[in-house]
């Protein structure tokens, strides 16, 4: 039998698109548990759908349409926007801060219900905590994550900000996810294995959200990282990029070992969530492209 190359693999996935897009999956929480690997989506992938709370109902429909039972929900799907013509950045920021610290947990619980009703579990809450956050705002953000039912609050904050989060993650009993990019020159950034070593040492409640696209682009060894750190990895952001700060690419056309990662998770029964996230360009709709990439992953586990 001739072995499939990864490029061939993608072609076969393309052929399966039509039927998959139209299949209406059963509304169960684990509709995206595929052969022992729990999949979810970072809905940033729907590039054609602005991430606003007004678009949240459409997001829920799309998740179901693409067969996902789990999501990493970015805060912008829940929060209002205060930036507008004539409103300074400082004023908009202050309004958002006030909104965050005064919004009751019931608001987030109602959002959780929207997803629950559709059979979609909110695995993590993506938040962009940075130096501008007050302690009260950080506390409110973790409360929001908890009210959404999320297991953790995830972000691309650097090491200095991550240290600030230690007491909050302990207080609220949910983990903090450290997400990497491929900025290897900034000693504060999460990027390579050494930076994860530093960040994970801050708190036992910290977990790695390993972005395999960026880790690959930074010439990191995803398989080796998972071998050594799988107990501290909550999820992988699964997508493809080329090495040497290369561009994003459709699954199978870059250097990220996507198939190997999925089989590693499956065969070792690691409870690591595979969250599809990509930013390669496409002329297709977001739903079509997500389905193509998801089908690629399903074939990896067949």
């Amino acid at each position, binding site marked *: 039998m001739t072995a499939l190359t990864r490029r061939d693999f993608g072609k076969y996935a393309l052929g399966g698109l039509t039927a998959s897009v139209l299949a209406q999956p059963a509304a169960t929480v684990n509709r995206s548990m595929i052969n022992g690997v729990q999949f979810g989506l970072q809905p940033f992938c729907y590039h054609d759908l602005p991430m606003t709370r007004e678009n949240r109902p459409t997001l829920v429909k799309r998740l179901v349409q693409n067969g996902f039972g789990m999501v990493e929900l970015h805060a912008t799907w829940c929060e209002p926007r205060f930036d507008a013509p004539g409103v300074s950045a400082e004023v908009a920021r202050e309004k958002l801060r006030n909104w965050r610290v005064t919004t009751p947990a019931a608001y987030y619980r109602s959002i959780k219900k929207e997803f629950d009703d559709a059979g979609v579990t909110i695995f993590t809450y993506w938040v962009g905590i940075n130096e501008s956050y007050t302690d009260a705002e950080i506390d409110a953000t973790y409360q929001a994550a908890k009210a959404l039912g999320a297991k953790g609050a995830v972000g691309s904050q650097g090491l200095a900000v991550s240290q600030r989060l230690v007491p909050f993650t302990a207080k609220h009993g949910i983990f903090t996810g450290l997400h990497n990019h491929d900025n290897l020159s900034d000693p504060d950034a999460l990027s390579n294995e050494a930076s994860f070593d530093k960040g994970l040492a801050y708190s036992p409640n910290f977990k790695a959200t390993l972005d395999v696209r960026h880790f690959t682009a930074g010439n990191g060894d995803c398989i080796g990282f998972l071998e050594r750190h799988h107990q501290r990895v909550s999820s992988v952001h699964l997508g493809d990029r080329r090495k040497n*700060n*290369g561009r994003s690419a459709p699954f199978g056309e870059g250097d990220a070992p996507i198939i190997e990662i999925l089989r590693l998770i499956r065969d070792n029964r690691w409870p690591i969530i595979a969250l599809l996230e990509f930013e390669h360009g496409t002329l297709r*709709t977001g739903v079509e492209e997500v389905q193509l990439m998801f089908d690629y992953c399903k074939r990896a586990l067949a």
Partner: protein
Amino acid sequence: MKAVCTAILITGSLWAQSAGTPGYDINYIGPRMADPILQHSKEMYVLYGCSYCHGLYLESRGEATDLMHSRLVGRDENANLIGPLLRAGIPQTAKLSPMPQFSDLSDQQISAIATWIHYARQQGRYKELIEGRDVSSGNAAEGKAYFEKNCTSCHTSPADLKREDGTLRTRILRPKFLDAAESWQVDRLRDTKTAAARHRHLALLENYSADDVANLIAYLSVK
């Protein structure tokens, strides 16, 4: 028969889902443009992921460079600056994520991406300058200096440009000949004068400041 019906249903649903064209997201990319070269350029810009960070119409977003107002884009000619930058990428800085390198793209693909960036920038800058500030307070002396530095290689005298009918801003930003379709007839391919004029005016459009336009209007208006 059942299979045929299923196929028809599947095809129909996909068409409906993608607003009429399977594999082409009309809601995001927009209706196909009349000019196939521009359409191709736009598609390359989307296909290689440029639009997700830099905006399909160069809307400024996040930490990605604002291509609508980038000086480098304004100085670029036929991808002579954009091309090498795309191929090499932008290295990491202490506070910004790097831009990926696109070293595997062909010259044609690089050219197409640059073509879209310039076209979108021209449209955007025109809109900004047309809808921008009041242009009645320009400085005629500075307008004269600008004219002599940038326009006299073609317009030897400002006299034939002077107007009093309020159309100067449009005429400066977008002379009518710019909107004429480019011809690929062999006998017109060597019309270097028109091509050069088009190139020059589009480059100016990408780089005018609101002050430049106000000053030119002050200089060229017949009082």
